[in-house]
Each structure stands twice: as C-alpha cells, then as structure tokens.
C-alpha cells in the first residue's frame, strides 16, 4: 500500500519535472526546427540563467518567480546576440562549423562559470520551499506545483505565438523555405536571431522555475542539455507539441525509473530510451514540424 503511494508520488513528481524539462526542450526544438542546428550551448545558457536567478535572489533579495520576466528578456538578448554576432557570423552556414561554434561557446561558458563561481553546488534557501500541498493522494512541495503550472502556461503562450502571430508565421516560413522566405522579403537572418532569442528566453523562465527545486553548479547544463536532447529526439526534432509530450514522458521515466532502480540508474534509463529511439525510430514519435 505504502509503495503504491510512493509510486503515485513519483509519477506526479515525474510529470511536474517533465513540464520544466519540456520548457527547456521546447527552446532547443524551436531552434532546431527553424535554424536546423543543434545548439550545444543550450545547456550552458540554462546554467548561466540559473546563476543569474541565484544571484538575483541572494544578492538583490528578489523572489525567484519575480525574476522570470527579467530573465526571459535578458536571455532573449543573449540568444539573439549569440546567433547574430557569433554563430551567424562565424558559422557561414556550414553545419559542422555551427556545431563547433556552439560547442566552443558551451565550453567557454561552463569553464568561465567554474572560474568565476567555483565548482561548488549552490542551493536557494527560501522559507516557502518547505511548504507542501496535499493533493489528496500525494504531498507535493509548492515550488514544484508552481513550476508545473508556470511551465504549462508558458508552453501554451509560446505555442500561441508560433501558431497565431505574424512573427510565428514568418518563423514557420523561414523554417520551411529559407530561400523562399528571403525572396518574399522576410529578413531571414533577423528571424534566425529572434528564434534563437525566444528559444533562449525559454531557458530564462526554466531557470527561475528550476532553481527552487534543484541546485546550480557549472556542470548543471550538461545534465539538462542531454535530457533536452532526448526529449527533442523523442518528440521529433522541431515539433513543439512533441517536446511537451516528450518532456512529460522523460520526467516520468526518470522519476519512476529512479523509484525502481535508484536515482542514478533512473537517469541511465533516459539515455537507453534515447538510443532505442534513434535505433528504431530516429524520426521520433511524431513528425517534425514547427
């Protein structure tokens, strides 16, 4: 009986984590869908954002959830600049060049963080972090519930932007036919940079939601970037809804796998999924579409 309760608890936890993972993955899949590049710097940008939130809370005394709009704006410009002035400039459209540049940027950020902030793991201390909510079948920390709800809301907002706005239409046009989009007068390079900006802005929000339930250190990006890659592949590269489903699924596997096998092997389970998907269904569970 007790174990059933714990199982239920891990299912709920898994889904709640999964929503935040999905937010991280959405940024990645959006960038892949439009720019057709795999951004290896994605995890490092998340790490930087998490430090940003950490210092905003500890030095300025701002509530982590209040930082969300600011972090999103800051990360938008970081992503925009990265694409416009580094990747777009140095990549010259060659796939392998871009790969190397995003990798190089990741290496610089990770180790700069190590240099500036040391390898120590840091955690927030907030009075409401201990508060739990009784859902009837499980006791869930309020921070997880906030993360889940906010991630879902952001997801819907992002989806609306892509489906309903002119900017979203331009983005989809560029994703499908960059040359054709250029011909009809869309500033493709700008859309690329904006897409990178939005994809990175997702990380600003994800960082603020993650920090109260997680911790930060210079390697934290690797943990999430591989999770995000798995989600993106699982949900089909470039598919936004796929990222949500994939994120929830991965959160579930991690948490329930951890329940049965122990925490660390729960993580390995995710990568086994990754390899299985690539082996048997490399196009993912859905079809690719932005």
């Amino acid at each position, binding site marked *: 009986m007790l174990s059933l309760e714990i199982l239920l608890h891990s299912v709920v936890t898994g889904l709640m984590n999964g929503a935040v993972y999905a937010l991280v993955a959405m940024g990645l899949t959006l960038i*892949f869908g439009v720019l057709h*590049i*795999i951004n*290896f710097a994605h995890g490092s940008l998340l790490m930087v954002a998490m430090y940003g939130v950490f210092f905003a809370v500890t030095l300025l005394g701002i509530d982590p959830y209040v930082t969300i709009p600011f972090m999103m704006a800051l990360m938008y410009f970081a992503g925009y600049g990265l694409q416009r002035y*580094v990747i777009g*400039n*140095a*990549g*010259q459209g*060659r*796939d*392998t*060049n871009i*790969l*190397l*540049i995003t*990798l*190089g*940027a*990741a*290496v*610089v950020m*990770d*180790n*700069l963080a*190590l*240099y500036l902030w040391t*390898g120590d793991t840091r955690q927030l201390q907030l009075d409401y972090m201990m508060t739990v909510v009784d859902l009837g079948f499980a006791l869930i920390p309020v921070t997880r519930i906030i993360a889940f709800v906010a991630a879902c809301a952001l997801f819907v907002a992002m989806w609306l932007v892509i489906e309903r706005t002119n900017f979203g239409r331009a983005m989809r046009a560029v994703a499908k036919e960059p040359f054709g989009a250029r011909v009809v007068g869309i500033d493709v390079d700008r859309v690329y940079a904006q897409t990178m900006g939005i994809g990175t802005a997702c990380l600003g929000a994800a960082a603020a939601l993650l920090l109260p339930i997680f911790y930060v250190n*210079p390697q934290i990006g*690797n943990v999430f970037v*591989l999770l995000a*890659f*798995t989600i993106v*592949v699982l949900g089909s590269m470039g598919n936004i809804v796929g990222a949500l489903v994939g994120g929830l699924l991965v959160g579930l596997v991690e948490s329930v796998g951890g329940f049965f096998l*122990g925490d*660390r*092997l729960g*993580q*390995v389970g995710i*990568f*086994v999924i*990754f*390899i299985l998907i*690539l*082996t048997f269904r*490399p196009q993912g569970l859905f079809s690719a579409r932005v």
Partner: protein
Amino acid sequence: MVRITTLALLLAAVPLFVQSNHLLGLFIAVLFSAYLAQSWNILGGLCGQFSFGHAAFFGVGLYSSLILQVDFGWPAPLALVSAAVAGAVTGLFVGFVSFRYGLRGSYFALVTLAFAEILRMTASVVSFTGAGSGKYLPTRLGIEHLQFSKSGYFYFILVLFVLVHLLVLAIQNSRLGARFAAIREDEEAASALGVDVFRYKMIAILISSAVAGVGGCFYGQYYFYTDPHIAFGAAVSIEMLLAPIIGGAGTLFGPIVGAVVLRVAAELGQSLTGGVPGFNLILYGIMVILIVRYMPDGLIGGLRRPWALMRRRPTATAG
C-alpha cells in the same frame, strides 16, 4: 613517408638530450594528444563524420584494459589488443545505430555525445568498473607489463604515434582514403560513383575507435588509474576533436600541429594563472570559435593559403 620518418627519428633522439622529467612528460603529453587527435581525424577529418563523444571509445579501451589486467589477470599486451577490440566494437555499435538511417552532421554529433555520457553514468554506478571511486592498476615495472621508466613511456607512445601516422598516410594514399574523402565532401555523389557509403563509414569508425581504444590502454599504463570522468568525460572528447580542428582536419600533420598548440596553450595557461580550474578549457573554447571563424581549414590550411598565393603570383604574372 619521408617527413614522418624524419620526425620520428628526431623525436627518438629527444630522451638523449632531455633530462628533465617534467619536459619529457610534456613531450609524452603532446604525442599522446596527437595520437588521440589522429584517431578522431580518421573518422572526423578523413571521412567527415564529426564525433562529439570520442571519449566513449577511449574510455571503453581504458576500462577494458584495466579490468582485464586487474580482475582477470590478463597480460598487458593482450589487454592492449583487447582495448583495440573493445573500442572497435563500441564504435561499430555507435556507427550502426547512427549511420544505418543516414544520420549525419548534428545527429551524429549528438548520438556520440549522448553515448559517451551514458557510458560515464553507467561506469559511475556499476560495480565492475569500481563505480565512482575508479579503477587502479598495480605497479609492476617491466616491458611484459607494459610499464616503463619515463623515457620508456616516451618510446612507447612514440611507437604508437608513428604507427597511427603511417596508418593515416596509408589510408590517404589508397582507395579507402579517396572514398572517405568523397563521403566527406558529398555523400550522394559518392554513392553515385559506386561508394557504399554506409559500409565505408563503418570502416572509418571501426579504425578510428580501435585506435582510440589503444589510446585508452596507454593512458591506463601511464597513469595507473581511471574514473568515469577521466574515461568518458566531455573534456576528453573535446580535446580529441579540438586538436585536429585547430591544426587542420583531414590533413596528416594538422592533428600534430593542433596537439602542440593545445598543450602549449594549456601549459602557458597553467603557469600564468597558477592552475585555476577551467582556464585551459576557456582558452580552448575561444580558440575553436576563432579558428572556425578565421581559419576554417585549420592552422595548416590557413598558413598554406597565403603561402600558395605567394608562390603562385610570379607564374600568374608570367601567364
């Protein structure tokens, strides 16, 4: 051939003149980096398949060599051979998974990266790798144990270094190399001209990962220890790909140039900052961005271009 032999002979004389253990250690480190860089270069440079997780093959070789010697009592030379086999088997698996569906570019980089990470996590959990605390090799000096004095290790890695360069040279001057290059430049055109793209990519990853596995074995013999991070960490994969990229991927001497530059930069960084963690990698990261931006063919290609222009100019004016 002449250039490699000359280089080998010059290097072979180094221990006669260099007494400092530190300096000899630096030579070993450079040769070892160049060896690993050449392993990456076979797959990434010659055949154009960028692996971001070459540590997978290196680490499997390293662990298998240590485990076979320590837990199964295998003689070291046999462990060396099995490190090559273990690396190759891992490579074939990764290659099969990725190349069968024609995953290229980013996808392949991603699969290799993820694969190295899976191995790292697994190695830090399961017991036969010694989990998080790692694996030690007991000291047993003697050639039959492949354990040497400092200068002995120098000659050990020099032999490996020369062999891998002769291997690359032989590939470059054969049908195999021509087909690798064709795949790197344009897969579709290659297949139209009779190249079985999947098969040749598998051959490339087989050779490359076997070479990396042997490199893992050398590491074990030299440092007597590994843990999951040393064997499968991202830093290993990054160093293995950075050296050829910086020096010039797909060229014979690029990986050597890159390895020298990286090691010297690391050494300088170390002495300038007094060993601040991460500083080397910051330098590496900046270097790779600058190289890709300004010298996409690496230092060798970048320096060859003005040189070729200088040499061509007189004939151009004459013609």
